[in-house]
């Protein structure tokens, strides 16, 4: 337990070390999530459009 506490404490520099690693994690994750979300939204829209076109063709 004491080892875990020392790990978090980082010799007194815990705040700086963990904030650094935390910011890095967030930035690296964002760079992964944002393009994926955008591509997914785009593909969904394209799907929607093609479905509407398909219905339009069925109706006419």
């Amino acid at each position, binding site marked *: 337990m004491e080892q875990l506490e020392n*790990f978090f404490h*980082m*010799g*007194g*520099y*815990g705040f*700086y*070390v963990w*904030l*650094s*690693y935390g*910011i*890095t994690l967030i*930035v*690296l994750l*964002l*760079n*992964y999530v944002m*393009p*994926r979300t*955008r*591509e*997914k939204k*785009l*593909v969904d829209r*394209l*799907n929607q459009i*093609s479905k509407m076109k398909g219905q339009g063709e069925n109706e006419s």
Partner: protein
Amino acid sequence: MWKWITKYASPMHFYLLANRLTPWFGWSAAVLFAVGLYGAFFYAPADYQQGESFRIIYIHVPSAWMSMFVYMVMAGAGAAGLIWKTKVSDAVARSCAPLGASFTFLALATGSLWGKPMWGTWWVWDARLTSELILLFLYLGYIALQSAIDDRRTAARAGAILALVGVVNIPIIHYSVIWWNTLHQGPTISKLDSPSIHIDMLIPLLVMAIAFNLYFAAMVLIRARMEIVEQEKNSKWVQELIVDKVSV
């Protein structure tokens, strides 16, 4: 001998290649990050001068290296787009910019968080940090220019010119800032400059550097894939391959 590479100048083949390669790069990056972090926290001994705070080096230095490497890739892809007029290189160049800006931001933020316990201030006009700040402005200018121009092809070519002008300037800026910095302070010897970095501290650093590189490869492929689908959304291959299918 290199003819096979020209196949991937076609957006569709690049898309398929990116789909195949991304998991490899992504998972190996994850593994190496895990190994590197283990090394950073448990294998490397604490620095006798800086204590545990020096562990920030394992993000700060690879981010700084990546920020400069990515700029070179961005300029190279831009040049390829100017010379061979390939849409794929335009997409890659455009994708590099947010990643490069992120790495630069990380280098600055972690540098600042490292500096506060070391030098007592959140910011120091140290040569390396100042160069990184200027590099951030170069990235932001590139991103702003590309978003300001509506036509993608034109935006890519204008961005390529800007990136090439930046590449010529970066060595000048770098040495100017070093010179400027040594004017007013004596040469500051940081732990990084001294040649005697302990091998146990060095190995996790190299592992993290490779991990960052693999991460960059994976992310640039993901983003370039997205840019290509956006650009080619009306083309036949997008309709056939992607629409009504679940993407990886």
